[in-house]
């Protein structure tokens, strides 16, 4: 793989072969060593993305780059509809609008320690995780579900499952426009229709954490983060409904791509022009799935509030406030460099810098909150969007730590150990549907999120604000 160092944390892959544009990636020395160890497989995936028609220079990956399918994880690519730019479901991922929501509270860590066990139980009972459907006391009929697909989180808030303020602190107000439930297949409804308000499995989780360190007082104040205070981080997406939307349209696009003269170097990059009947249909279905995901995290936040109340925290005295909810698997039309482009983010976070009109007023002077989960044993980070990100990465930043072990390797490493007990000995209570997920998601299976944050902060595409450490982990 041919690349050159541009600055301390930034590298450029010059255009060659079928690439339409240069590519660029961000990495610390440690991250670079990891890329070399995998024989630059994820950089090859990045170079593949750069072959897609209408891509705006450069094709990018964030510092949490790792090997995916089609696009690498951490991939960011913008396409210009005026120049034959394409939309690729594989550039968004099967879990459309997978994302994170952070809740803040005024509860102190010491206070929480006293009710930690009952709270962990209440969260595990109240927030469905693992395989299966949502809570029996929450069911939506088809008409109401379609309303959610069009309107996102708002219909739930109107029914009492949250506060109006939650919507203001959700990316795009918790709704992508242009959704059309008719663009979603019956199988997608069947797979995901009853899964609203569920975490799922794999790397999805709910964590109760405390603010361990603050790096930027001004931004932390704007975000409402206080040292030692309790936060809750929710990671989930569009469940079976979104998975099926991606599945349906990848197959359709594979058939359609040759008709538009699109030569695919990897079938999982299946793409069609944004301005084509197939492309427009996908965007309508994708927006529907994205809205389902916003609503999913809204409902999980409501169940979380209920669980805190059940554990003895009066909601009047100890409200849980949504700091922000954001997507890290999405495609959105945005203005960058004076033109309207469709920005694909696959395992990357929108990270708008200060002064952007769309941000809530109280965050506008410091930049958008960027939530970067680490692993369940160490820490997660809150960053702020920067002008550097607006200039260099289409307003994007990192989304997580990135795995370093395969799931199989992690299970081998966990053999003969009790990972759950090890975490409990370290002060972290774990509630999980099965042992397999806990083993696969063990701390050592992930890169150190601090390395990702070092490169992100160092490259100026995200500003370090605070570090959060886990106290309770709920997994599928």
């Amino acid at each position, binding site marked *: 793989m041919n690349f050159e160092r541009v600055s301390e944390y930034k590298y450029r892959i010059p255009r060659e072969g079928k690439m339409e544009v240069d590519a660029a990636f961000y990495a610390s020395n440690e991250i670079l060593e990891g890329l070399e160890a995998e024989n630059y497989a994820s950089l090859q995936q990045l170079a593949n993305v750069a072959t897609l028609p209408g891509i705006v220079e450069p094709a990018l990956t964030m510092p949490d780059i*790792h090997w995916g399918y089609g696009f690498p994880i951490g991939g960011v690519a913008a396409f210009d509809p005026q120049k034959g730019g394409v939309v690729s479901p594989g550039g968004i991922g099967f879990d459309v609008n997978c994302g994170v929501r952070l809740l803040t509270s005024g509860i102190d860590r010491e206070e929480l320690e006293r009710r930690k066990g009952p709270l962990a139980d209440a969260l595990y009972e109240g927030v469905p995780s693992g395989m299966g459907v949502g809570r029996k006391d929450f069911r939506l009929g088809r008409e109401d579900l379609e309303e959610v697909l069009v309107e996102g989180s708002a219909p739930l808030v109107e029914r009492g499952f949250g506060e109006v303020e939650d919507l203001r602190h959700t990316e795009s107000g918790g709704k992508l426009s242009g959704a059309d439930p008719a663009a979603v297949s019956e199988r997608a409804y069947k797979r995901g229709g009853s899964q609203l308000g569920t975490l799922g499995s794999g790397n999805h989780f709910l964590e109760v954490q405390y603010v361990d360190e603050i790096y930027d007082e001004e931004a932390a104040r704007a975000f409402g983060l206080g040292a030692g205070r309790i936060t809750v981080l929710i990671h989930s997406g569009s469940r079976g409904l979104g998975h099926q939307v991606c599945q349906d349209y990848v197959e359709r696009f594979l058939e359609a791509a040759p008709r538009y003269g699109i030569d695919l170097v990897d079938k999982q990059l299946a793409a069609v022009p944004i301005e084509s009947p197939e492309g427009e249909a996908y965007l309508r279905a994708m927006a529907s799935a994205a809205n389902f995901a916003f609503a999913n995290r809204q409902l999980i936040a409501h169940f979380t509030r209920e669980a805190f109340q059940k554990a003895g925290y009066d909601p009047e005295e100890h409200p849980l406030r949504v700091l922000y909810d954001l997507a890290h698997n999405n495609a959105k039309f945005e203005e960058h460099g004076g033109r309207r482009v469709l920005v694909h983010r696959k395992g990357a976070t929108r990270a708008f810098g200060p002064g952007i009109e769309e941000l809530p007023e109280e965050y506008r002077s410091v930049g958008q909150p960027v939530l970067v989960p680490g692993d369940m044993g160490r820490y997660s980070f809150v960053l702020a969007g920067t002008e550097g990100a607006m200039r260099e990465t289409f307003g994007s930043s990192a989304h997580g730590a990135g795995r370093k072990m395969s799931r199989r390797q992690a299970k081998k490493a966990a053999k003969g150990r009790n990972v759950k007990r090890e975490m409990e000995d370290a002060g972290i209570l774990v509630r999980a549907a099965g042992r397999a997920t806990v083993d696969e998601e063990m701390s050592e299976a992930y890169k150190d999120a601090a390395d990702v944050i070092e490169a992100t902060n160092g490259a100026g595409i995200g500003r370090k604000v605070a570090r959060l450490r886990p106290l309770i982990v709920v997994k599928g």
Partner: protein
Amino acid sequence: MIRMLDHTADVGFELGASSLEDLFEEARRALLMVVFERPPKEGERADTVRLSAPDRETLLVRWLNEQSYLIQDAGFVPVGAKIQIVEEAGGSGCALEARLTGAPLLLEEYGWQGEIKSATFHGLDVTNDDEGWHARVILDV
């Protein structure tokens, strides 16, 4: 032949078999190995699956996605399959019919290991040489 791959973010496997039908049967077995620690071996339920696709790769992706749909959304764990595949002359498409036997989904008993989002087309090739049929599949989990 099933060989599990070490994919960093997701899971994958390489398959080998003497016929295309056997390759698809190996794919079914590999999927069960991904989903369960202790996949069931016997079942009394029955189902029939019919699929068609423009090419073998798409047929394999649809076959795996159908299996995961049956497990996750219909509670039917396919423990055996009698598969027939018909390929149109000139490579214009292929069709599969499979008679499945299945067991009910028992998460704890089988050691459920997590959901499958989808089979992917990433690096997917179904090939045939002197040694038989081969495929390599990555699943998003």
